[in-house]
């Protein structure tokens, strides 16, 4: 049991158990000792649903990473390849299998495709002459992975690129499949809303798949009331801006991968006396970040400026708790104190970790450059000087600041101006090519293809209309005790979350005009339920909405959604990203 998954309004452990069961069933099909050969990309996502102990219980003795040529020696009966359905991986697998065949005792080979079997890949294996070597060829539909009590993820990093740059819908198909699995476990979702081209496609696929599944009538009482599908390209602005929540900043600075973050070790060296800093750990400190950690759950979604006070308050509470021991006089009191000790020590460890992280982040956020960058971002977002060359960006290029930073700013400016004037755009492009190298002409071209960067066409800047109607810029932000979602970017209210907010109240009809400006169609679909399953709403009971971002979501957006659901008092939103 992963307890943090069952805190939310929807118990995601049901899903986790379902995927774990499926994995166990597959492993048991291959009787005897086994070695697993992993597609490296999958180890992270798998780690979230099954630890090594589970695999070990099912006789998995060795684990390898999928590599060319031959497999490391292993004295096992079965060799299981766990891979994504990609042609290049099939080539490697066949190399492995062929070299293994030459090496002595026959093994049983199996292949587990994640998340789906592929005719294309099987054809490739057939062409390579190894298809017959596999006893079990199955698929493991790991589409949505439970992350937290209110969060699921497809962990599909390339989804945005595939969908918007390469027009490859594979990930949309997986998303639709994942949503079908979810509905099989949590009931049919009666209403589907959506905005954007990809959203429309996913909804279409879902409706189609539902038709394919007729016969296995779903008789589960629906847990979710609504599903909102949102294309990432409806709101390209939000991911370009710097996130200012605690979790968001950790991600901005260190990057969170599969809920883990790697941090510079120096700050986390155990402080021991007489240990003159001799053997400082050199390996990065790896921490898992989720709501299972009480303190983290409390601060993750706060604006970073509000984190310090919480940490110091916590520090006082904890040291006061430790002081209690002096008051413990009777044996009973001492016993009680001792019984609480493990919990207190865990809290103290957690506090120490987060204090260190906060210090690391503070070093960055208090730097002048961070401040300057933020100022420019906020100027753009509030609509100031978006139509001319920005001197800060110029300076950044001249000083060869990291390209990604420059590109984010330029794209942000482009988005906030409904595209840049051709002259401005060409100037930026030229500067970037001359400074960072001509090869980035391809990078720029890709940005233009996805719409992150574009010349202004039609001559009208629509951003101010969008900004005003959706109240994207709030001048009075309370970072400590927020009253509006704009606190997550200290002023800017994420467009995507605003859409979700307006959908639940008062409904999208009020913003038809803006919806027409934003790319892609908006729509509503109803999935009829048998009368027995229709909900009779209790007064005061809130709706549960599942929000699905097609193409990724930022931590700040998640924070904003959590804030909304608290505001609605229990109407917990649940959001997913890929």
């Amino acid at each position: 049991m992963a307890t943090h998954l069952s805190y939310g309004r929807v118990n995601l452990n049901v899903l986790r158990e379902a995927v774990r069961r499926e994995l166990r069933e597959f492993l048991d099909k291959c009787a005897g000792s086994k070695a697993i050969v992993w597609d490296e990309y999958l180890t992270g996502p798998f780690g979230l649903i099954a630890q090594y102990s589970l695999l070990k219980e099912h006789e998995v003795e060795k684990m390898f990473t999928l590599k060319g040529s031959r497999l490391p020696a292993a004295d096992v009966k079965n060799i299981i390849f766990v891979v994504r359905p990609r042609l290049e991986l099939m080539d490697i697998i066949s190399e492995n299998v062929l070299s293994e065949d030459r090496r002595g005792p026959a093994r049983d080979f199996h292949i587990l495709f994640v998340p789906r079997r592929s005719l294309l890949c099987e054809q490739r294996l057939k062409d390579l002459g190894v298809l017959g070597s596999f006893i079990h060829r199955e698929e493991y539909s790991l589409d949505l992975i439970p992350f937290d009590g209110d969060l699921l993820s497809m962990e599909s990093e390339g989804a945005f690129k595939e969908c918007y740059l390469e027009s490859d819908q594979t990930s949309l198909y997986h998303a639709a499949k994942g949503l079908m699995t979810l509905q099989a476990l949590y009931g049919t979702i009666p209403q589907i809303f959506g905005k954007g081209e990809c959203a429309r496609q996913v909804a279409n696929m879902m409706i189609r798949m539902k038709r394919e599944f007729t016969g296995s009538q779903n008789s589960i009482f629906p847990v979710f009331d609504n599903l909102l599908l949102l294309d990432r390209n409806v709101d390209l602005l939000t991911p370009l801006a710097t996130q200012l929540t605690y979790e968001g900043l950790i991600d901005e600075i260190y990057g969170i991968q599969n809920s883990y973050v790697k941090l510079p070790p120096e700050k986390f060296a155990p402080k021991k006396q007489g240990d003159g800093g001799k053997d400082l750990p050199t390996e990065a400190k790896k921490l898992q970040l989720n709501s299972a950690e009480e303190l983290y759950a409390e601060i993750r979604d706060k604006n970073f400026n509000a984190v310090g006070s919480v940490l110091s308050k916590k520090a006082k509470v904890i040291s006061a708790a430790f002081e209690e021991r002096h008051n413990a006089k009777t044996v009973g009191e001492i016993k009680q104190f001792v019984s609480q000790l493990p919990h207190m020590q865990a809290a103290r460890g957690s506090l120490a970790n987060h204090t260190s992280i906060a210090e690391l982040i503070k070093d960055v956020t208090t730097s002048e450059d961070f401040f300057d960058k933020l100022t420019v971002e906020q100027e753009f977002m509030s609509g100031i000087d978006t139509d001319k060359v920005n001197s800060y960006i110029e300076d950044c290029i001249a000083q060869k600041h990291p390209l990604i930073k420059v590109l984010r700013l330029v794209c942000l400016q482009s988005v906030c101006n409904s595209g840049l004037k051709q002259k401005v755009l060409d100037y930026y492009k030229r500067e970037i090519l001359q400074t960072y190298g001509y090869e980035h002409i391809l990078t720029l071209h890709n940005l233009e293809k996805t719409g992150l960067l574009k010349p202004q066409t039609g001559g009208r800047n629509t951003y101010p209309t969008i900004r005003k109607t959706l109240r994207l810029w709030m001048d009075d932000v309370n970072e400590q005790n927020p009253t509006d979602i704009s606190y997550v970017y200290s002023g800017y209210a994420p467009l995507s979350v605003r859409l979700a907010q307006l959908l639940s109240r008062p409904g999208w009809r009020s913003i038809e005009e803006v919806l027409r400006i934003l790319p892609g169609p908006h729509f509503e679909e109803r999935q009829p339920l048998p009368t027995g399953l229709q909900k009779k709403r209790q007064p005061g009971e809130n709706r549960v909405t599942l929000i699905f971002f097609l193409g990724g979501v930022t931590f700040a957006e998640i924070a904003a959604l959590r804030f909304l659901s608290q505001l609605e008092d229990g109407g917990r939103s649940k959001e997913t990203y890929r």
Partner: protein
Amino acid sequence: MPEVPGLQSAPSCWTTVCQDRVAHILLAVGPDLYLLDHAACSAVIPPGLAPGVSSFLQMAVSFTYRHLALFTDTGYIWMGTASLKEKLCEFNCNIRAPPKQMVWCSRPRSKERAVVVGWERRLMVVGDAPEGIQFVLDEDSYLVPELDGVRIFSRSTHEFLHEVPVASEEIFKIASMAPGALLLEAQKEYEKESQKADEYLREIQELGQLPQAVQQCIEAAGHEHWPDMQKSLLRAASFGKCFLDRFPPDSFVRMCQDLRVLNAIRDYHIGIPLTYSQYKQLTIQVLLDRLVLRRLYPLAIQICEYLRLPEVQGVSRILAHWACYKVQQKDVSDEDVARAINQKLGDTPGVSYSDIAARAYGCGRTELAIKLLEYEPRSGEQVPLLLKMKRSKLALSKAIESGDTDLVFTVLLHLKNELNRGDFFMTLRNQPMALSLYRQFCKHQELETLKDLYNQDDNHQELGSFHIRASYAAEERIEGRVAALQTAADAFYKAKNEFAAKATEDQMRLLRLQRRLEDELGGRFLDLSLHDTVTTLILSGQNKRAEQLARDFRIPDKRLWWLKLTALADLEDWEELEKFSKSKKSPIGYLPFVEICMKQHNKYEAKKYASRVGPEQKVKALLLVGDVAQAADVAIEHRSEAEMSLVLSHCTGATDGATADKIQRARAQAQKK
């Protein structure tokens, strides 16, 4: 088959026997018996065979293949195991006329042996007992041995000879006092409203045999063929059940259901006169299959519905069979068949339209198959069949509709092999989703094809990008790279992307230049950005060339200043830096000079520039070089609240106490105003 010694004409009789899972032929020639397999022929002698046999007239193997019976010309019957190793019994019927037929009659209950011998008008059942039972036949008859008895057919009758089951015997034996018999009696009396009913019932209950009684009645009902008798027995069982507290109802319910099914199929319109035991042995699934084979679809569906079988095993399966039959009706038009099938099947869960379509295709009705596939909701089933039927283009659009990219790929690769290149590309052109997928495939698998695709679509922008990628990935030599870039630039011109074309030409120029630099100066220049090339030149003291390059490529002044500033500071060439700062008025101001000197920890140099910083950034510059006091003065002079607090935040307690006081005073004054 091997030769049989002495076999001149047809053997007097023969049969197949089964030993150790191998089939043999047992064959009689005169007084001798031979066992044949595929290789050998051996004479066998049945143990204990009475002497005087000159020929065998009949032989019969039992339903289970375990027993064998031999009828000799002496009217003697030998019964033994089929292995011919053991004699079980013998019988002398004293009839020498050759029998028409001889069959074993299985006796599932007593497991005893019985052989039925049939002559023209006579039937004799023989076995262990010294006496046989004789029946007279009215017509010529034919005997069929079955699982639990022998069926006797004649032109006008159909009879079944079998051992009486226990339950029936118990109940119907004359003067039987078995609980079942009493219960049946009780029920009859009860219907007559006679108090005897109570007496009978009491009698059973006193012995505590009511459950057995009910059970017997239920069982006996199963073996009755006549519905009235079935009803009467079931009524008795139901009557008896009323007096029992906890009698599990399933056996009764199931028997009622089974009998209803059996009566339905025994109807002369259907004509499947199965016995209860045969029906149980066969299972409902097989029975349904037989009905389906006889095309008795409505009855089969009624039975499924009546027995509430799950749709997938029951109704759906039968409908699917019906549909498969329907597609074979060649005299009905495709349209009508497809419509009729869809009307009946609709969205019945578990019906696979693709299976039906496959059948239609198997009968050569491709058009019908395609029509049927329209109703198939599962694209995973639909598409492969369409491919098989060589409707690849239709398969492609179906695959695209499903959104399953793997399916689309499968069709694409199929199409690629099936069509010539031109047609293939044309097909792709009308399917943008497939086209972009195929592009991805080519990007990883067939780069050249990718180029052809772009060429066909006149997509010059992408062609340009393609050649740029090639100039980095495929080409080694500088000439090749430049040539690739030239192609790219041409493509960009065609795409009317002036900017990219110019940038590409610049890059060609830069590449050539970089090579020249490498030749002349040594070191590495190739593939540096323009910015880095200039920086490298400055760092290696080639200021003139750097200037020239910057001019040639029109590097904006501001960036050039940053560039030089950074490079000179890196060199720690403070003299040159100062000279540079004075060459003209800095387009980037002088704060960057201060900053960069401080970065190199040269406070001395930094101070030189601090004084030249414009008023707006003066405070910042002074603070950078650590001149808090002067910064304070400037801030006060500017009357800027923000600057004052900035300075204040830099005041460290001990040294800057006075300065801090000064600012506080100025602030207070400002507030008064």
